[in-house]
Every structure is written in C-alpha cells, then in structure tokens.
C-alpha cells in the first residue's frame, strides 16, 4: 500500500524556521514506521536525520512523536498509525539538533544526578543474597531503556526544565527499591523537593507512552509515599 508521511525538518545551521516535508512510500501494514523512514532516507531523501540502532525496542535510540504520541519508530507498526498521513516529529521538551534528532544531554545529566549505580559496601566473596521477593520490588524499572519518550510526553517536563522527569525518577526507583542499596535514605531525601518527586502531578502521560510498559506514575507515587514515611 502507499503511505503518506509528513515529517518535521529543521537544520538550525541553515534553516530560519522548521518546516515539514511530505513523502510517499510503498509499505506493508505490518512494517515498522522505522522501516518506512529508512526507505525514505535511503531511496528518496538522504538529508533526513534521525537516530536508530537495534530496531526492536531495546537500545532506545529512535524515540519520536508519531501522530502526536511519543513512541519508538521501531516499535510502531504502520497499521497502528495509519490515517490520511503519518505525522512524524521530534519528541518535545528537547532542543532540536537536526530534524528528528534532539539534544538529550540535559536528560542524561539528570540521570547522572540521581547516581545511577548501586551504592553498597563490603561485598561477600560470592553473590549478595537477595530474596526473589526483594528482587521483584525493583519491578519493571529494570526495563527502562532511557529512550526519553516519557519525558517528551510529560506536561510538567515540557513546562519546567528543572523537573527531574519520569525516566530519571524510574532510575532512582530502581536503586531505592533495590534491597542491596545502602543509600536509600539519601536518595529519598534528594527526591524530596519541588523538582523531584513532587514535580509529578499525576498526568499519567509517561505511563501511557512508555514503550516498555513501565508503570512510571505508580513508581513515582510509591517514592512519594516512601519520602512521606521517612519524614
């Protein structure tokens, strides 16, 4: 079938303002939106830019806004987004570097801020013991691939660049609910601020768009409760 695409274009070095380019490609309804973008770039317009790598929702490179929803282009099938045309734009709340490529440096800096590593001393010779129940407390947080779809979709992140944002909070959750971590109290204290967990006001957009189906809002609320219990 013939599918129409309308794609956001902007090269800050040469364009005064963003614009949209239209393309049509032959596509199978079962194909990924990424397959279509590749066909456009490879066969029609080599100037189009976007990130991609694994093409099956594991590396987290190809977050973009497809028909208004932040998604991974490799995880959306043509048949799911079919309409008069498929609208593809960069994820909001980030500076556009080129077309669909955004500057994720501030996002990664926020992930670094929550200290995305286990803090624990004196490991035994073998593995630390952790019960299956304790292991499950980290829940789906270990599925996070740092694609930033959630941040793009979050109305608070879009308004307030200082808000930590959903994915960095999921990264914090992963450590706070890891029974092996020894700085739970400090981590919770770090989140107890207006731009930490309290920035979240339960829009649930992050949960709606998460390509890995992580219950992000629920996890943020669990951390709010943990902060309250502590203080």
């Amino acid at each position, binding site marked *: 079938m013939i599918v129409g695409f309308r794609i956001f274009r902007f*090269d*800050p*070095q*040469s364009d005064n303002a963003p614009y949209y380019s239209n393309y049509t490609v032959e596509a199978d309804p*079962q194909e*990924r939106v990424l397959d279509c973008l590749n066909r456009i*770039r*490879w*066969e029609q*317009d*080599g*100037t189009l*830019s976007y*990130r*991609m*790598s*694994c*093409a*099956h*929702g*594991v*590396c*987290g*490179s190809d977050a973009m806004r497809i028909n208004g929803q932040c998604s991974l282009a490799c*995880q959306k*099938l043509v048949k799911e987004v079919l309409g008069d045309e498929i609208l593809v734009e960069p994820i909001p709340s980030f500076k556009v*570097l*080129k*077309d669909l*490529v955004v500057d*994720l440096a501030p996002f*990664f800096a926020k992930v*670094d801020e929550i*200290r*995305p*590593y*286990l803090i*624990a001393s004196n*490991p035994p*010779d*073998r*593995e*630390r*013991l*952790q*019960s*299956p129940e304790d*292991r499950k407390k*980290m829940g789906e947080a*270990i*599925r996070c*691939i*740092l694609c930033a779809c959630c941040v793009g979709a979050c109305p608070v992140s879009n308004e307030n660049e200082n808000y930590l944002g959903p994915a960095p909070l999921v990264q914090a959750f*992963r*450590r706070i609910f*890891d029974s*092996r*971590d020894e700085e739970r109290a400090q981590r919770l204290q770090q989140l107890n601020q207006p731009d930490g967990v309290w920035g979240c006001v339960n829009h649930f957009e992050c949960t709606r768009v998460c390509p890995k*189906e992580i219950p992000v809002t629920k996890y943020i609320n669990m951390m709010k409760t943990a902060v309250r219990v502590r203080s």
Partner: protein
Amino acid sequence: MKFKHDIVIVGSGLAGLRAALEVASGLDVALISKVFPTRSHSGAAQGGIGAALGNEEPDSWEWHMYDTVKGGDYLTDQDAAEALTRDAARAVYELEHMGVPFNRTPDGRIAQRAFGGHTKDFGEGPIKRACYAADRTGRVILDTLFGEAVARSIKVFSEFHLLDLIFDRGKAVGVIAYELSTGEIHTFHSRAVMLATGGFGKVFRTTSNCFANTGDGVHYTYRAGFPLEDMEFVQFHPTGIYKLGVLISEAARGEGGILRNGNGYRFMEDYAPSLKDLAPRDVVSRAITTEIRQGRGINGSDFVHLDLSHIGRERLAEKLSDISSFAKIYLGVDVAVEPIPVTPTCHYMMGGIPTSLDGHVLDLAGNPVPGLYAAGECACVSVHGANRLGTNSLLDLVVFGRRSGKMIRQDLQELDWNELSPNPDEHIVEKIAKIKTGRNGERTSAIRSDLQEIMTGKCCVYRNEKDLLAAMDSIRQLKERYEVLAIHNMGSSFNTDLLEAIELESLLGLAESILVSAIARTESRGAHYREDYPDRDDKNWLKHTLVAKTNSGPAVSFKPVSITRFQPKARTY
C-alpha cells in the same frame, strides 16, 4: 580538534566499558562510541551469562570448558577456554556486586537456567548454568557497567564514529573519529588504542544485529595490514523472528520451548537425540534449514514454529517477558497460546582480530602489535572456535575486557608518547571529499542491499564452492560500484547518509574476508558447513584461518589451535 588521552577505547559495549573501568583510576581514558553507551549492541543480549556457580545443581568450570571446546568443534583455543571458564564465577559475582539485578533462587542466590550446548559431567545432559535477569541480561549488565563508568567520571565521546587507526613505525598511536553532531574530523592521540567495536552482522540481510554493527574496527585493522582470524565462522542463530530477524533467545528453549516443523513434529529429536532443542546453535540452524529445504516448513514455507504455549503465562512473564512482547508487537502473536514463526538469523562473528589472552592484537607472525588491543566480538581470542555457545559472549566481554584493561595498565608503564605526523587525518578528509563530490553514482543502500542479498543467499548456513565463488565475483563488482557511489546529504550535522557510505566500505571488505576464508576451508566444522566437504577433517584443518591484505588481494594462511585438556573427538549431541 586534537585530543590527547593515555588510552583511547573505541566501543562502549560491555568489553569497552569493562576495560575502561579497569584503567580508569590514575589514567586518562577516552571512550569513543558511535552511539550513546547504553545504546550499544551488548544490550540486545537476552538469555544469560554462563558461569559454573552451581546454584541450581552441581557444576564445575571444567565441564563448562569442555562444553565450550566441544561447542566450538575443537577449533576453540583451549588455553583461552580455560581462562574464560575459570574466571566465570568471579566475573558474575563481580557483576552482582556492581548491582546487576539477576533473577534469584528461592534461597536468594543468582538463578540459573539451561542453555544450548551446556552440559553436566562432560556431555551427560543439559545443566542450568546461564545466570540471567529475565530475558534482558545484556541490557541490565550494560546499564550497570555504564552506571559504574558514570560513578568514575569516565570521559565518553558519544556519537563519534571511528574513521581510521593511526600508527607510527608499527605502533598504534591514536585514532581518527568523526563527530556526528558537527561533522568535524578529530584526531585522538594516545599511548594505547583498544578496539571493542563489536560484530558485523549487517553484512547479511537477515540479522539480529543492530544498524551500528558494521565492523569498522575490524576492517580498519585489516586495512592497516594486520590479519583477521577465522572469518568464515559466522553464527546463524536458529530462532530469529521470521523475516525480521529479531532474536528470540535460546532461553526460550532453555525454559522448555520446542521447535516444530510443518507436521507439528519435534524434529530436533532426530538431529540431536540427547540435547534435542538445546543442541548448539549451528546444529539447530542446520536442522531448521534442512527441514525447510525438504518441504517440512510451516505449510511448506520457509520457516518453522517455536512453541512456548506449554510454559505458562506466569513463567513467561517472569523469565521471558521481552521476547513475549516482541512476538506481540511485531507479529500479533500471544506466545502463551500461539507458536512463533522463526528462521535462522545472522547473529555473531566467531572470527575477528586475532588477540592474545590479554588483548594484545597479533600480527601475521603472532607477535603483539605495540599499543593495539582488542576484546569482545571484534576480537578472536579464540574462545568460541567454530561455533559460540549461548551465554559465552557476555562472559567473553567481561572476562577479556577486564584482562585487556589490566594488560594496558601494565604496558602503559613502558608505552611512551610517539609523535603524530602533522596531518594524520589528511587521507580521510580527502576520502570524505571524494564521497561528497560523487553526484551521479548509485546510492549506498542499493549497493548494500545487493551485498546483503548475496551473502545471505550464498554464504549462509549451507555453503558450497560454486556459490562462494559466485559471491566473491559479485562482491568484487560491488566494490567497483562502491568507487563511484553518490550521497545526497552534503550537510555537517547528523549526516547519516555520509556515514553509511563510509560504513559500507567496511561491510564490503569484511564480506570479502569471510568469503576468502570460507572458500579456503574445504571441510565442515561448527558454523562453517560445506555441502561439497560435509565432514570435519582434523588431519588437514584443525587450524585457524588467517586472512591478510596483500598487493594481489587477500591471502590466506594458518595458525595452530591450542589443545591442552581435550583431544578432538566426534561431535554429537
């Protein structure tokens, strides 16, 4: 710009990260990667990391070593297999200490499960040896090691593409890299260079590999005049999603999944009576291809079924949730009730840059190249021989990544700064200018898809001389077409049009190395199966292939296999 760091590590998957952690304290290390580190392809590894922890049942590193050697069809260097398997438990405990969220046994130890080719007591039935975190083991290890890199403030250059290696009188003294966001060409001057650039599955059409896996580091090593080892040994994973190639982990069979042909028959019983569906990958891929060729695919078509419907929803959710969601997203298949259509997919390169056990890159005479190191899939230690066992790649990355880091640290006490020539990037600047001026040639994608079709059609699970020679002929024509290739994008920001053109040179060069090596090896061993030479021939071919560049094209030579504990014998499962 010109950067100067003690060590430059190229590639931020598990091998590069693990090495970086080893050299980080007290030394100035730069980690260069074509993608942000957590996007690296190590993250796509699903099923587990092998180590004889004995948490589920008694196990020993000798059994693991035996399986690795037999799995590699005796081409595995046994000193390397011993180094790998003896260090496995320590390596996995270390990962746990760093915070990897492994699944757990009821008593809180690291949970383990069965995997292809891993056995107890030297071949007496399957054993639970794969340590896992659901079916995203690679991803969580990658996240964990990157977290450690963040904790130690390791300097990362993300979205920098390797363009070439710089040598001075035979010593590696730096690299040239392209910054994707600006289009600038940078020189990194260093005392040591480590390559951890991964595999090159993108030589093939159907592959589990990511787009970044174009083997740049391997090709540039070859281009610099150093040999590549065992390039003919390409692993085709038995269970890629039909047409897409997306991997369905061997863990699916480790948890009880069964392969069925068009008659609903569990055909692996005929090919591997003892291990059945848990036979090594080369055996299973050949079995699937044979079933399909003999008309027993599903409805006579070119795929078979992987049936997980008897495993149960709860266990699928706990242990195989990612693959369940892949099947749902891409096929609309609910694996708890329906089978997954699968075919073999190009997955892993056993061959690569020859190295010592400590990551020294070796020249044609077997001597270390000063200042140059390699580890991970780009390297050939050779720990995987003619066929890698599942779970041994993650282990390879952390064990040999660490060993390389230790070696670099030690060597740096003596490795000094060499002078760089004033414009070491001149030839690269010219090359890019040439690509940008070609206006009337073909697009990269046309040449690349022809390459991938040829390799998949003629150099796949089954091979023969006629097909391989025809493929070689075609590749040489593609190289001529490449010379007049044209790109559309003349911009400097995120110009992937240009980079894919540059990557295609690597893919073409590596395809040629694979073919030359595959034509030379007139026997069948592990993943290299020659229909015209169907038997293993230890008398003539128990040796590694080396392929090196000469003025008259690629030349093949050989080097002996290290055999210490296990004498070759017939390989049945």
